C-alpha cells in the first residue's frame, strides 16, 4: 500500500487510478494471423477475421498469453489458472464485429503492484488486474470532407489492459507510476513502448475530495500518450474539478479528452448507453487454461527484473539505492553500466560518469544509451585512466568529447594525441611549484596569514604553468607541504 504523502491541492485530496493499454509485441494479431507491424498501407494487414467477414472465427495467439504471464510475474500478481474471454458489445466504425473480445469477470492476471521512487520516497501502486483484449482500428478524420476513413490494420492487435487501484495522490505520482510501468513492460520485452505509435496508452481516472470524505465522482481522461501531457492533463482536470465544486456544482461522470494545444480537458460527446456493454462469455472461445508448469517455465526463463537488478548493483557494486535505480532505468543502460563497471573495476566512477557526463550528452542528442558513440568499453578505458591518475577529470571530459564526436575510438590514443597526460612527475612538478612560489611572494604571505583563497590563486598559476597537466591533488599536497 502507498506509504507516501502527497500535497493537497487547495485543500483537496487528489485521487487517481490508471488504466493502461499496452500493445503486446507479438508478430501476429491476438485472434488472427495478420501482421501487427506498424505503418503499413491502410487495410493491408486486416485479414478476413480482422474485418469480421461473415463466417470468420477467432483463434488465440499463444504469444499474447505468454506475454500476459510474463507481466503478471514481473509485478508479483496471481496468474489465473482459468480465465474467460467475454464480448463487450457496442457499435463504432473502428470495431468491426460490433463487439470487442476482452475479459470481464475473470481476467488472466489478478492483483500485483508497481513500485517506484517519487522524490526519493518509495511508493507502491496496487494493480487490480490485467487482462487480454483486442485493439480496435483507427479513424482518420482529417482527409475526407464530412467523412471518416477507417483503417483496420490495428484491429486485432493484442492489448494488455492494466488497471490500478485509485492509489495515486498527485499528478507527479501518476506520471512516476506510468514511467515505471512503461519501464517494466519494455524491460521484459512484452511491449515496444513506442508511445507515439500508440503502443502504450494511458487513461487516467481523476477525482478530488476533502480529506476523509468518501471518493468523489471521477472523470476519465482518455488516451494520454505522452508523460508530459499526462501531467498537464491531470493538473488541469484537478483544477477544473475543484473550481466546479467550489462553485457549487456536482461533478458528473464523464469521459474527457486532453487537448495538448489548449492544455485543457473537455468532455467527449456523451456516448448514449455507453455503460451497457452487455458483457457475456464469448461462445467462440473456450476458457483459457494456464497450467502451473507453463507459469514455472516462464518464470525460469524471465530476464532479471529491474528492481532485482538494482538490488544486486547495490550489493555487488556498492551503489546507493538511488544510483542503482537510475542505472536500471532500461536494460540498455544497465548493460552499459555493468560492462563499464566490470571492465574498469571502478563501479562508482563508472556510475558517476554514466549518470553525469554520458547522460548529459545522451539527453542533448535525444538518443538512447544503446546509440551512444562512446561504448561501455571505451568509457571503461577512460575511467581506468582517471582512476590511475593518468588524466584529470577535465582532460577526461575532453577525451569523452573526442570519443563522442568520433575523432578517435581509443582513449589512450586520444590522450596521447591531445597530450592530455597529467604531469605526475613529482620532481618536475616541484620545480614548477618552486618557480611559482618564488614569483608570487605576496600570495604566499597572504596564505600564511590565513587567507585560503590565496592558495587557489597559486594553484591556478601552477596549473597554467603546467599547461593544465599538473595533477591537482598532487599540487595541493606539495603546496601544503612546502608552505607549511
Amino acid at each position: 500500500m502507498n506509504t507516501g504523502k502527497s500535497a493537497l491541492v487547495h485543500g483537496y485530496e487528489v485521487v487517481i487510478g490508471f488504466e493502461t493499454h499496452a500493445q503486446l509485441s507479438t508478430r501476429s494479431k491476438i485472434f488472427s494471423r495478420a501482421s501487427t507491424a506498424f505503418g503499413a498501407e491502410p487495410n493491408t494487414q486486416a485479414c478476413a477475421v480482422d474485418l469480421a467477414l461473415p463466417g470468420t472465427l477467432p483463434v488465440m495467439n499463444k504469444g499474447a498469453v505468454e506475454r500476459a504471464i510474463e507481466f503478471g510475474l514481473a509485478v508479483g500478481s496471481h496468474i489465473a489458472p482459468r480465465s474467460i474471454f467475454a464480448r463487450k458489445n457496442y457499435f463504432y466504425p473502428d470495431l468491426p464485429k460490433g463487439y470487442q473480445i476482452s475479459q470481464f469477470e475473470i481476467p488472466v492476471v489478478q492483483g500485483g503492484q508497481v513500485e517506484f521512487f517519487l522524490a526519493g520516497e518509495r511508493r507502491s501502486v496496487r494493480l487490480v488486474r490485467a487482462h487480454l483484449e483486442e485493439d480496435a482500428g483507427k479513424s482518420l478524420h482529417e482527409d475526407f470532407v464530412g467523412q471518416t476513413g477507417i483503417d483496420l490494420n490495428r484491429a486485432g492487435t493484442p492489448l494488455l489492459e492494466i488497471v490500478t487501484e485509485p492509489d495515486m495522490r498527485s499528478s507527479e505520482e501518476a506520471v512516476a507510476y506510468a514511467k515505471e510501468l512503461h519501464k517494466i513492460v519494455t524491460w521484459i520485452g512484452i511491449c515496444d513502448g513506442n508511445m507515439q505509435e500508440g503502443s502504450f496508452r494511458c487513461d487516467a481516472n481523476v477525482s478530488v475530495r476533502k480529506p476523509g470524505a468518501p471518493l468523489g465522482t471521477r472523470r476519465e481522461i482518455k488516451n494520454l500518450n505522452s508523460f508530459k501531457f499526462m501531467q498537464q492533463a491531470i493538473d488541469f482536470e484537478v483544477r477544473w474539478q475543484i473550481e466546479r465544486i467550489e462553485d457549487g456544482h456536482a461533478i458528473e461522470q464523464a469521459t474527457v479528452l486532453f487537448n495538448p494545444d489548449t492544455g485543457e480537458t473537455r468532455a467527449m460527446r456523451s456516448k448514449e448507453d455507453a455503460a451497457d456493454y452487455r458483457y457475456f462469455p464469448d461462445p467462440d472461445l473456450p476458457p483459457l487454461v494456464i497450467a502451473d508448469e507453463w507459469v514455472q517455465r516462464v518464470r525460469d526463463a524471465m530476464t532479471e527484473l529491474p528492481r532485482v537488478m538494482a538490488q544486486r548493483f547495490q550489493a555487488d557494486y556498492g551503489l546507493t539505492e538511488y544510483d542503482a535505480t537510475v542505472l536500471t532505468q532500461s536494460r540498455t543502460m544497465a548493460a552499459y553500466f555493468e560492462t563499464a563497471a566490470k571492465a574498469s573495476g571502478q563501479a562508482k566512477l563508472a556510475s558517476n560518469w554514466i549518470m553525469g557526463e554520458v547522460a548529459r550528452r545522451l539527453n542533448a542528442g535525444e538518443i538512447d544509451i544503446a546509440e551512444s558513440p562512446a561504448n561501455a568499453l571505451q568509457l571503461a578505458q577512460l575511467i581506468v585512466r582517471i582512476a590511475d591518475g593518468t588524466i584529470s577529470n577535465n582532460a577526461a571530459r575532453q577525451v569523452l568529447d573526442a570519443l563522442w564526436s568520433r575523432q578517435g575510438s581509443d582513449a589512450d590514443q586520444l590522450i596521447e594525441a591531445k597530450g592530455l597526460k597529467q604531469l605526475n612527475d613529482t620532481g618536475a612538478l616541484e620545480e614548477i611549484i618552486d618557480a611559482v612560489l618564488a614569483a608570487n611572494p605576496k600570495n604566499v604571505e597572504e596564505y600564511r596569514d590565513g587567507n585560503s583563497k590565496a592558495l587557489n590563486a597559486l594553484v591556478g598559476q601552477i596549473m597554467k604553468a603546467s599547461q593544465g597537466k599538473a595533477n591537482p591533488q598532487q599540487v595541493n599536497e606539495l603546496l601544503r607541504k612546502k608552505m607549511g
Partner: protein
Amino acid sequence: MKTPTELHDLSVAELAEQLRARKVSAVETAQHFLARARANAELGAFLYFNEEATLTQASAADAALAAGTSEASLLGVPVAHKDIFVTRDFAATAGSKMLTGYRSPFDATVVARLAEQGAVTLGKLNCDEFAMGSANENSAFGLVKNPWDQTRVPGGSSGGSAAAVAARLVPAATGTDTGGSIRQPASFCGITGIKPTYGRASRYGMVAFASSLDQAGPLARSAEDCALLLSAMCGPDLDRDSTSLDVPAENFARTLDDSLAGLRIGVPAEFFGEGLDADVRTAVDAALKEYEKLGAQLVPITLPRTELSIPVYYVIAPAEASSNLSRFDGVKFGHRAEQYSDLIDMYKKTRSQGFGDEVKRRIMIGTYVLSHGYYDAYYLQAQKIRRMIVDDFQQAFKQCDLIAGPVAPTVAWKLGDKSDDPLASYLADIFTLPASLAGLPGMSVPVGFGAGNMPVGMQLIANYLQESRLLNAAHRLQQATDWHLAKPEGF
C-alpha cells in the same frame, strides 16, 4: 447405362459408383441436375447458380475420374449448399437482404471439405434469414414450397435444402441445425438429415447465428448417403475454429450394417404428451415397432426439462445472435442505406432495411436479455438450466443407447399459417431444441405419412460422438422399410 431421366433417382452412393465406373460423366450429371433445378424454380429452393463454376468443377472431376487414381468419395456428385455457408464462386447471402450480392473471399470449411472429396457445387439453397425460422418463410428472397404439397411449408431454416433433395433437384445438400433446422425440414419433406455432435463439423465459413448451437450437417434421401456426406464434412478444423473438437475424422458408414439386437431405445414420456398430433404419434409408433422387430428394446425414459428447453433456447440463441449480427453495420461489407443524416442514423437505417422482421425480433430479445440488470435473471439462468438439460440426457443414456421420438408435433403446416405468430413457431420446436442445447447428435428419418398425406419424421438422438450409432439405426430401419423411398408426385 441408366438413362438420364433416372439419374435423379439414384442415391449418392449409387451415383458415385456410376461416376466411378464412367457410366455417366460428371459434366452430364451436373447439367442434368441444373436443368431440373431450373425447371422447378417455382419451388423456390435455389437462390444462386454459377453454371460456369459448376461445370468447371465437374470437368475437373471427370479428369480425375478418367485418371482413376483418386480416392475421393464423392467425385463428380452434385451437392448444393445452404446459403448460410460462404462460397467463393457463388453469392453468399444467408437468405438476407443485408448481404445482397456478397462474395466471400474464402469458402466455408465444410464446403471445402466436400469439394476435396470431389463434390460438385450445384448452387446455393434458400433458407430462413440468418437461419432463423422453422418454415423458410423468413427468407428475404422468397419462400420455399414443400414438394409434397406446394401449399405447405418445407420446414426451416434449411427449407431450400430439404425441398431440393425431396424433389430430387440435387442428390444431397448441406444444411445447418441450431434448434432443429436440419431435422425439422427433413421431417417435413420426408427425407433424412443429421446434425452431428456440436463441434464435429467446422463452423468456419458458416454465417453465425448462435455460436454455441450452430452445427452443419447433410440432408439426403438415405442414412447411407448422409453417412457419406457427414464423413466428408466432419473433422477437426483446429486452425480456424476454436470450438472444433479435436477428435479424428470418422468413416460414419463403417458400421451401417451392424445388427440392432439388444439396442436399447429410450422413449421419453415428454415427447409423447398432449401436444403431439395423433397422426404423427401413429407414424412414430409404427417405426418403433419396426425397431422392436429388428431386435431393439424400447425403454421408457424421462427428459423432465423438455418444455423448459423452449424458453432456454429462445433466450440463449437470440442473445448470441444479437451479438453475432452486430457486424452488419454497413461499414465493411453488405447493405448500406442510401440516405442517412449521420453515423448513428446510417447504422439504424442500414440495419432496419437489411434485416427482416424475425431477425429484428430476435436481435431485440437477445439485446434485452443481455442488458444491464437482466443478464442474471435471463441469460445466466438459461445457461444454468441448460446444464440441467444436459444432465437429463446423461441420466437417460444410463438406461438406453439411443433416444427416439417425433421431430415435430405436427406435419408441415400451410404456408402463412404461422407467419404472423412467431410464438406458435417457437413452441413447435419443442422436440428438437433439447438435443441442440445439449450439443448431442440428432437425426430425422422418414417414417411414413400423416395428416394431409404429409411426411412424418422420427427423431433419433445419440450420446456425444455416436453419429455412427444413429446412422446404423436409421440405415437398418431403411433396409427393413421403404418409407424413405417414397417420392413426391411430379418430381
